[in-house]
């Protein structure tokens, strides 16, 4: 088929889609969120087990297309062992990458580079971002509730 399509469905991406990482349930869940793509009804569930500020383990379950499933799988792979601050940074880089901005990329994106092909398919960007926005929303909510606790205990 045509070139942009091959660029979208790169082998690495399809490999993640077929064998998604992070499908094992966690023992301890410290962060949990569910997400939806209202355009199509795709659904995702994400859970994190933390060790201090670091991601010890992650669970991602996505009912969706190849792009959203693969993106969720790549997420599971890359954030393991990272701090929540690092995770937020990676999410930012991926967002800019998908929106076509040249990222002054100091970060090692690994397989996530494969998402670049999505740029030529604007309607699919939401699919690629579903897992990331779901995760980031959860992190931000956690931070907000922590702040609220701190200020109320002051």
């Amino acid at each position, binding site marked *: *088929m*045509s070139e*942009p*399509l091959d660029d*979208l*469905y790169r082998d690495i991406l*399809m490999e993640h889609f077929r064998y998604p990482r992070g499908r094992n349930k966690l023992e301890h869940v410290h962060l949990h969120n569910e997400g939806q793509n209202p*355009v*199509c*009804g*795709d*659904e995702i569930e994400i859970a994190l087990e933390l060790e201090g500020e670091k991601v010890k383990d992650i669970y991602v379950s996505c*009912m*969706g*297309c*190849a*792009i959203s499933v693969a993106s969720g799988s790549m997420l599971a792979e890359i954030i393991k062992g990272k701090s929540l601050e690092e995770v937020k940074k990676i999410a930012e880089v991926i967002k800019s990458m998908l929106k076509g901005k040249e990222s002054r990329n100091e970060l090692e994106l690994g397989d996530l580079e494969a998402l670049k092909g999505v740029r030529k*398919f604007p309607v*699919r960007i939401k*699919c690629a971002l579903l897992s990331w926005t779901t995760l980031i929303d959860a992190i931000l909510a956690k931070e907000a509730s922590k702040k609220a606790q701190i200020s109320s205990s002051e």
Partner: protein
Amino acid sequence: MKSTEQLAVTKNISGNGNGFDPEVIRRDFPIFKRKINGRRLIYLDSAATTQKPNAVIDVIDRYYKFQNANVHRGLHTLAEEATTAFEATRDKVAKFIGGVKREEIIYTRNATEAINLVAQSWGQANIKKGDRIVITQMEHHANLVPWIVLSRKTGAELVYIPITPDGFLDLKDIGKIISANTKMVALTQMSNVLGTINPVEDIIDLAHKRGAVTLVDGAQSVPHLPIDVRAMDADFLAFSAHKMLGPTGLGFLYGKEEILNNMEPVVFGGEMISEVKFDYADWNALPYKFEAGTPHIAGAIAFGSALDYLNALGMENIRNHEKGLIAYALEKMKELDFIKIYGPLDSERRGGGVSFNDKDIHPHDLATFLDMMGIAVRAGHHCAQPLTRLFGVNATTRASFYIYNTINDIDALITGLKEARRYFKYE
């Protein structure tokens, strides 16, 4: 299906003796000159919105170029011409759906707004706690969410007519569902996901016996079937211009005069009043009571031309043409063991598009793949999320047809489905 049978179907479609020839019709639609990703456009998304013929586009063009003026309140030549043309479409719509009074035709933005007008105006005034609203499990969000909200606001219960696994309404308990306390029965005449044509006459008949008022969502049926709203006896009928060759931004509510007369307007402003003082406002007569502010004049005038076009083809012929297409598409898809079809398999009892899924390829990926071949299909929940979930999925793929589609388009789709499996390495 063998190639001889195939031929018979083709004949049935284009050689029905009424001069209905989609190949000729296509020439009236400039969009088919366009290439998509280097391929010829195969447009299978008419249930979302149809393409427009030159006859409609040219009227818009001419209107803005040489006639443009605001309607009703003007005494000058342009204003009078615009008003006459704007009101002429109302007459055509009244005739098109079976010969109702022009006062019974209200211009809205789309089918969605038409249904909301009823839920809000008639609903708020007539639905109370203890009452029942009946809809079906196959409603588009437009004929679902307004009733969820109304039932939440009023405390009325919302009860669904269920569907059978093969995509028909399950009518065995209908006598119980449409109970004595049922005040409104609202249902689609044709499902935008399953294609099912519902026996609206029978259901309306029962509803009326129970003293309920009825609304038919005609967004999918009015463009594709001959409609006689008087024979159907629906109290309300809602539909959109853009799904039947017309422009965007225009829809219609038909309502029985007596009921409309007893309804309060929901949008207030110019044109819908008869007199305004600083502490007082009185409403204009039908249909203007429900049409506040400057309407979509260009759209209404152009839609008159769309109706002329459909009338010239003949709605019976359109129905026959589409029945042939659907029968052919279902036959061909049934041969593909990796495709699951949702909805009735009998083309006599269905119209609209065909919803299906590849057992391995997600509808989004399939739609993207087909698009690269120039084939436009829709993937998602088609604004009928609860229905899609009933079938255990989040999304389906839908190919929907209209007057300009041919057997060739369906063949291209079938080829595309096969190639997708090769591309995604399932074959």
